[in-house]
């Protein structure tokens, strides 16, 4: 089902400007056209940082020191800030965890979609208005022409996230990055938003980079999974492979910490201990202090190596 890659991230490394402590280190993965790749990990694993790095929206205190981010054949990392800006909203779009704060509170939601259409796609304003209303309808908002004039605070949480998705789709992006898109929502609304994302994926072949700590979301939506730990890739595998036979001790711990039954989506219950923070990273394998399988060889960092078809893992204990 996959064709050429939309996004290839290779060796991406970032550090804190002030202390030069590394945050992401050598992160490598790709997303094919129409594919949904979930990036999972506990909070502090660097998954949101990864999303911002791909968007070119790293906070000022953090900089990229190595690696490439190739989107549709162009290395974003080699472009100027202005050129990356020109890519954002055209090739790349992003939706955030908290739709209320991510929408401008004093601007009508319609305008927040229209501005992408007029300024990024160059539509004349009347056409932009019609297209924005069509998009609102497309993301499942009833009476879209009416909602067009609403302010964010007048909408429910689920509707706000739909508006965010509509604004992201307005640019007709090749890749949509969704950072915890359902975390802030009620359980029933979560399911609706996931359904919407699945529909969009099927109907317009959207490539999706899904940042989440929720393995239930992964199970519902992801084709492949990137497990991130302390800024490094621990394991990459097709979703079904990962759920059936995860190899990295960290991935296994994550899966074990979720309830056995097919109950409601569960948040990751952290394994004993906490993710090390930038500047306090252990030498060698970063998971070593929390790992029950740790041996002497773990004192040097394990490389990503094949553990099966389309399955990569970074662990000395996995041969």
């Amino acid at each position, binding site marked *: 089902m996959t064709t050429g890659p939309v996004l290839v991230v290779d060796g991406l490394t970032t550090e804190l400007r002030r202390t030069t402590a590394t945050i992401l280190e050598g992160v490598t993965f790709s997303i094919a056209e129409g594919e949904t790749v979930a990036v999972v990990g506990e909070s502090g694993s660097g998954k949101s940082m990864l999303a911002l790095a791909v968007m070119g929206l790293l906070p000022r205190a953090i900089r990229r020191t190595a690696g490439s981010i190739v989107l549709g054949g162009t290395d974003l990392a080699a472009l100027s800030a202005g050129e990356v800006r020109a890519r*954002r909203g055209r090739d790349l779009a*992003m939706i955030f965890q908290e739709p209320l704060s991510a929408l*401008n*509170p*004093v601007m009508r939601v319609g305008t927040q979609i229209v501005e*992408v259409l007029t*300024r990024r796609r160059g539509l004349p304003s009347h056409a932009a208005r019609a297209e924005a209303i069509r998009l609102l309808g497309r993301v499942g908002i009833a009476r879209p022409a009416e909602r067009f004039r609403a302010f964010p605070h007048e909408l429910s949480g689920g509707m706000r996230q739909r508006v965010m998705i509509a604004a992201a789709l307005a640019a007709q992006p090749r890749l949509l990055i969704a950072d915890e898109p359902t975390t802030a929502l009620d359980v029933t609304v979560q399911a609706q938003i996931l359904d919407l994302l699945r529909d969009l994926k099927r109907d317009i072949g959207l490539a999706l980079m899904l940042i989440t700590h929720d393995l239930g979301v992964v199970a519902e939506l992801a084709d492949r999974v990137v497990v991130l730990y302390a800024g490094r890739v621990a394991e990459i595998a097709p979703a079904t492979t990962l759920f059936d036979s995860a190899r990295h001790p960290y991935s296994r711990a994550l899966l074990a910490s979720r309830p056995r039954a097919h109950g409601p989506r569960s948040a990751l219950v952290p394994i004993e201990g906490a993710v090390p923070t930038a500047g306090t990273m252990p030498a060698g394998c970063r998971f070593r202090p929390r790992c029950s399988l740790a041996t002497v060889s773990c004192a040097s960092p394990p490389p990503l190596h094949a553990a099966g078809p389309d399955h990569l893992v970074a662990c000395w204990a996995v041969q």
Partner: protein
Amino acid sequence: MLVAFLFRRLGGAAVVFLLVSMLAFLLVWLIPGDAVAVLLDAAASPEETARLRAALGLDRSPLAQMLAWYGGLARGQLGHSLLLNRSVAEALLERLPITLSLTALALAIAVVFGTSAGVGAALAHGGWLDQLLMGVALFGLSVPDFWLGLLFIIVFALGLGWFPTGGFVPISESLAGWARSMTLPGLALGLTQMGFIARMARSSMLDVLGQDFVRTAEAKGLSRSRIILAHALPNAMVPIVTVIGIVTGALLGGSVVIEQVFSIPGVGRLIVGAILARDFPVIQGGLLFLAGVYLLVNLIVDLLYAVIDPRVRLA
């Protein structure tokens, strides 16, 4: 929803205005001892004393005095000046446009330059421009406005001769003349409040620039100017608009002294003259008048606030 919001505010302002008028009425009661004896010198004849007592209404019971005050208010009357031999309301109304035009000019200077400086400082956060602008703003806050007026007269009127030392030319007579007569007083009055607004605007803008929706706008690939002008600035204006009411109050007070410095025949000059001559009906009327203007401006600000920030209409 907007109308209901406005009515609630109108009700609140009406209550405050009643209290304001009561306080203005009670001012005469602050005169220590026998008010009439204090106001007249010892040589005053009994007839003169009696006439003043009647003019101030002090020959009647406190209740009757209060009824007369509110009765007058209901008819739009504020009593008679002891010295000008005319109605207080008329004298005030005649001078009100002058004071309002001065205050409005100073407000425009303060808001436009203050907001620009504050936003500029926020965008240059931590840099030399930020430090320079905030240093100037703090300095502006620390300068007495009437003294600044005197300094302007010394430098720009007496020294360089660019502007008149004082006086007032009505707009109806000559726009250029009005502008020339109002530039120095408007600047002197506006600069202090400019510092206040600049500090306010800077912290408001910094706050807004750190919010999620600005990152969303970045993620949409919008231009820097679009993000600042269409997304950040309207949000940063919300707290600035709310302080416009306070700033207007300070400007109305400042105009009283500035009118004196520049010999501008406005409400302030009338009140100061009345204060020095202890012409109480004019002082009371003047207090009530300027407080009324202040309350009215605050109502307008509330309305403006609700227009800028749609969330307020629910509150």
